[in-house]
């Protein structure tokens, strides 16, 4: 629990539905900016791998 503006009240657990989230993106295939949302993935019936890393210009 925290007092920040989280999208969730408790940490996510395996087997639970992930609350919807949206990200501004850079889309290398288009050379343009875009949006990514979990809701759109669910609508398209696609699996999603969310891959966090600390910072650009570092190793992955």
């Amino acid at each position, binding site marked *: 629990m925290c007092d920040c503006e989280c*999208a969730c009240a408790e940490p996510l657990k395996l087997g639970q539905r992930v609350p919807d989230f949206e990200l501004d993106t850079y*889309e290398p295939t288009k050379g343009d900016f875009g949006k990514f949302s979990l809701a759109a993935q669910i609508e398209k019936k696609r*699996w999603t791998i969310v*891959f966090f890393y600390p910072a650009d210009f570092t190793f992955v």
Partner: protein
Amino acid sequence: MGCDVVTVSTDTKFTHLAWREHEKELAKVNYPMGSDPTGKVGRMFSVYDEGSGLTLRGTFIINPEGVLLGSEVNFYNLGRNIDEMMRKFKANIYLARKTNEACPSKWKDDGDKTLVNPGAKMVGKVHEALNG
């Protein structure tokens, strides 16, 4: 494969653009690069470090219904093994089709030995189930 990868850091989409187009190591990386400057999404997945404002090396597998099925987090100084990530991802897709099976640790591909109907009869007999 019916799957999309989105990479996420707290950098802005502008920085993503600059890095992607500058770093030659990324020339073949075509995943959308998500920007989480406030750490909102990182907090949701418990990978946002309040002290540094960065996100740890977390990988999360979400099925087409939006259910979280896989979670792995490494500290800053340890990179991930993409082969293991893909192994787990493939196993999750396989298991979504074969709901009465389980994939043991050495499972890699469709056709590899699985545990069928793991239950009371398999207690103490996993070796036989895997080698029988």
